[in-house]
């Protein structure tokens, strides 16, 4: 029993567990992880390196393509927890019959060691519980939009029934040159039989309500387009496109299909100067995004037009492609809104800081 306990409490085990953890984490950062890659991409990756196919099969068997959720990773963390527990216990409990010398590290060394390892125990336990019970959900929200029970449920079945609903308004973006220096929106939280609560959510300033935290994430433009066939007067209702912000040096598009095999493609150009020939005459300004509208019928291009929308004026603009008139009726912003449930979060933070305190006490003499 003593030998087994000594082994579990040993620094040798600690070092080996740390080395295994190090290797697993390094593998996790090198191998494509299921969280960020699709199975198809992993398959393509395997095809790209056929010589390693057997290794990949073994990795797949061990679930290394989702390493941070695999059993081996959790087992290693569990073993670390046991090791921390035993080595702390060994130094905390004086057992004469076991011949331990709990004060082999004296004074600040003993206190530091104990605080550091107890904090690490807390942290590992907190992380394991958090990993098991935490959850997060992402929503794409637009200005003047309600987020309520049905939409929560539609977005993810794992969301429990929430009694409150959220209203988003006053999306604000401040620029300095082409850099976004401030981004925020007002959020109204409405709960039956209680007064509504108004708050502002900004980048780096999330808010917490009923155990859930709400974070502002990515954002972009949400222009509304209307298509009208001039001779017949046939028209479509305004369609909201979801396009990325100008700062990202990419162009993205939304495609809308209508009757008569008609397709409207809307591209946004982050920097008109870099985009395509013929765009050079348009000055790049974050407040004046440039959209390229292409109209296709039966997979044949009817024509393309560039329009530049002035956000400060907020006036509808339109252009003509063949027999069709395309109008940009209004421009809003969209934002991805992250809602998360993080049990034990503050406990993890507390234990992290406690680790640092323990480390300072443990090593203050060594350092000085």
């Amino acid at each position, binding site marked *: 029993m003593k030998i087994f306990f000594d082994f579990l409490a040993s620094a040798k085990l600690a070092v080996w567990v740390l080395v295994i953890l190090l290797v697993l984490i390094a593998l996790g950062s090198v191998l494509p992880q299921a969280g960020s890659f699709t199975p198809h991409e992993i398959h393509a990756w395997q095809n790209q390196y056929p010589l390693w196919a057997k290794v990949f099969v073994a990795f797949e068997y061990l679930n290394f393509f989702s390493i941070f959720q695999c059993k081996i990773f959790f087992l290693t963390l569990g073993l670390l927890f046991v090791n921390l527990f035993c080595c702390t216990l060994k130094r905390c409990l004086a057992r004469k019959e076991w011949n331990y010398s709990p004060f082999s590290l004296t004074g600040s060394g003993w206190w530091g060691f104990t605080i550091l390892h107890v904090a690490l125990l807390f942290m590992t336990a907190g992380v394991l519980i958090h990993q098991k019970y935490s959850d997060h959900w992402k929503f794409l929200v637009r200005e003047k939009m309600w987020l309520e029970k049905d939409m929560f449920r539609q977005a993810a079945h794992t969301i429990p029934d929430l009694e409150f609903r959220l209203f988003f308004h006053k999306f604000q973006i401040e620029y300095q*040159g082409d850099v976004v220096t401030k981004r925020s929106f007002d959020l109204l939280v409405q709960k039956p039989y209680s007064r509504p609560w108004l708050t502002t959510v900004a*980048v780096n300033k*999330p808010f917490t309500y009923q155990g859930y935290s709400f*974070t502002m994430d990515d954002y972009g433009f949400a222009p509304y387009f209307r298509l009208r066939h001039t001779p017949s007067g046939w028209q479509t209702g305004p369609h909201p496109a979801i396009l990325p912000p100008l700062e990202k040096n990419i162009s993205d598009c939304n495609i809308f299909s209508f009757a008569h095999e008609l397709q409207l493609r809307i591209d946004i150009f982050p920097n008109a100067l870099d985009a395509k020939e013929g765009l050079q005459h348009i000055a790049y300004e974050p407040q004046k995004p440039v959209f390229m509208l292409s109209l296709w019928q039966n997979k044949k291009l009817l024509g393309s037009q560039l329009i530049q929308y002035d956000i400060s004026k907020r006036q509808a603009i339109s252009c003509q492609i063949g027999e069709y008139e395309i109008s940009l009726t209004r421009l809003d912003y969209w934002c991805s809104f992250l809602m*998360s449930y993080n049990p034990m979060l503050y406990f993890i933070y507390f234990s*992290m800081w406690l680790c*640092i305190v323990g480390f300072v006490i443990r090593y203050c003499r060594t350092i000085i």
Partner: protein
Amino acid sequence: MKTPELVCFWITTAWYLVAFASAIFFVFFAREKLARICTWALRIGCIFHVITFILRWYYAAHVPLSNTYESNLSSSLIAMFIFLALQIIVKNHLAQVAAFASGIVVLVLATGMASDTSLKALSAAYDSYWLFIHVFFAWFAFGCFTVATAFSGVYLTKSYNPKAMTTFYSLEAIDKISYKLVAVGVLFHAVMIVSGAIWAKNLWGHYWSWDPVETWALIAFIGYLVYLHIRSFWKVFGKTAAWMMVLSFIFLLIMFWGLPYIVPNAHLQTPMRK
């Protein structure tokens, strides 16, 4: 980048190169004069480094930390501060260590210069006091680890070639100094990880998202923890410990200057999610 800053930057680099050259000559010829030249070159270089840092801060109107150039400028300055402070504490020119330290600092500055040096406003993502805590402690940790690795380099050179650097500290003393520096570095690195986790929660909604840079920061941290454990409990000193430190420093270099160029990630030098 404006002209006064550019001029100061090149003067800084030139003085560090003088320090590097004299330190290298000192290693071979062991002349006291060369060690003194090295120390003074480093001190003058450091003064111009501080001026460059202040000018950058003034022109950019924010703490220089928003891109690769600014990050490298600041981190190398802190590494140099730590080295010069150590010189004063131990009352020694440490010219052999300066050869490693100034070499690394010049490389870091050169990498920064090769990247985008344009002045930009601080984006909304960086507008958090946790960022300053996170980045400053990252730089302090990097400074400590850089100097500690320089000592390990000297240790390894001396242990493989006992005739080299005979005027320098004994192997035992070098080992002890680098151990102390690692202890301080691990402490700063821990504060960096904790503050980064809190900042990440506010910014991305997750305190830990296995971002490649985050992951390699943890790998380097575990590497140094292994080093501390094998030293404290297994009483492993000497070459093994020195190699362990060099390995951990490689992890650190991968984190700071390897991954941001290889893997797309929402960290450090790559543009942050706005």
